[in-house]
């Protein structure tokens, strides 16, 4: 989006980086767990790894207040419309992390009942491989997402191809 515009002025650039700073430091995840990866997500929120250090401990129960959808586990074909709907209920700007091999590509379940990758229904920003990925891997993915947000434009996530 920014490629087509003239070079933005100094003040607007500063405001943009200020907004992206706020967005990257206040990613409230949506409290949803799908399968065994959810246990690792919960362990990340618990005392030993403590996701709260990055300001992300506010797992919102309502998608209306969430910024980050951590798709943690196997997405079955039956669950796929629900995931899509919950993602649509989240207000922009919003980000998605595909956590674990199942969410990336179906993982160990190349079967009729499992969706082969959650990126078939919603746009994914960060993929975290592993079966399941440990809390360190999830934290690494979250930091990578923070860096991506900081580099981008405040609205860049809204104009992605969906």
């Amino acid at each position: 989006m920014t490629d087509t515009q003239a070079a933005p002025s100094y003040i607007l650039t500063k405001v943009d980086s200020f907004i992206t700073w706020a967005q990257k430091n206040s990613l409230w995840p949506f409290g949803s767990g799908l399968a065994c990866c959810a246990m690792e997500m919960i362990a990340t929120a618990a005392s030993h790894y403590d996701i709260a250090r990055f300001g992300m401990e506010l797992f919102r129960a309502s998608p209306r207040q969430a910024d980050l959808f951590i798709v943690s586990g196997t997405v079955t074909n039956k669950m796929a419309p629900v995931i899509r709907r919950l993602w649509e209920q989240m207000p922009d700007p919003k980000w998605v992390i595909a956590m674990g091999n199942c969410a990336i590509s179906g993982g160990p379940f190349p079967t009729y009942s499992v969706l082969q990758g959650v990126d078939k229904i919603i746009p994914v920003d960060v993929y975290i491989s592993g079966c399941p990925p440990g809390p360190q891997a999830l934290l690494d993915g979250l930091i990578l997402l923070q860096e991506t947000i900081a580099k981008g434009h405040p609205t860049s996530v809204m104009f992605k191809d969906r």
Partner: protein
Amino acid sequence: MSGFIVSEIIIPVIKSVAVALFPLVMTVVMIWMERRVVALIQSRLGPNRVGFEGVLQPIADAIKLFFKEDIMHRGADRSLFNLSPVLTLFTSLLAFCFVPLGDSINVFGYTINLWVAESPVGLLLTLGISSISVFGVIFGGWSSNSKYPLLGGLRSVVQVLSYEIPIVLTVLSVVFFSHSISLVDIVASQKAEGMWYAFYLPVSFIVFWISAIAETNRAPFDLPEAESELVAGFHTEYSGMKFAYYYIAEYTHMVLASSLVVILFFGGWLPPFPNVEALSFLGYVPGFIWYLVKIMFFLYVFIWIRATFPRYRFDELIRLAWKWLVPLSLANVMAIALVRSLG
């Protein structure tokens, strides 16, 4: 003439702005403190990446919420849905008009009272105005036109109606001592008495404190927004800045409840034991600082209770109000009335 302009226009404007800003600044401090203290109690670290020890975390949250999409879903009642967060925040800020933040001070020859409006019925007005804010919660739950917000709103009605009664009855026992329902006069009468009312009225203080926690919808009485049952309760459908209004209003309400506890039972801006000669050096600390220290203590107790106790079940919550707190406060009021009329 210039003196008139300063005392009648400039000072009231400054005071009004300061009184509107004070609860908001306290909200920012409280959000950071709550997240750090709860984390430390749970042997975690809490937010420590943004700014020094994470002090900029509430700022980042506020700016992010400001730039979030504002969702108005098709089924919602537009006008009420927009009105209710404003109503909740505005009324809890408005109640601070009557709260004295400190004694009168002299600046450049002008006497400045650290309260915006002094009313002979200040206590009644504060309780009344802060009770209006529950309408924001009820309207918000109703106008969302969705099942979880509606249930959260209904719970909130029952809870606030139940806990208003012990609050008013315990306030009555304070009024028996102070012979006034002006908040400034209540503090002044504690100074004349030489003792904070919490030492005279321990039962009233405990009943008031429990009811104040229930009034502010805080854990362990946060039934209207119980996550395990009602998603996010009455603000399930709210996003962006409207949700932030509810969030700020909750903290503003906590500051107001702590202020009322401090003023009614802990001497407002007075130092400890104001009439003891040996402790008179404590009087050199400005009254506002004493007030701030006291409300910070009670805000800390709010967080402490939240991190310690599990949530009540709804029937237990109502039983606590009607079978314990209401009879206890009634007996307390009658006993105090008897003692005051005999002695």
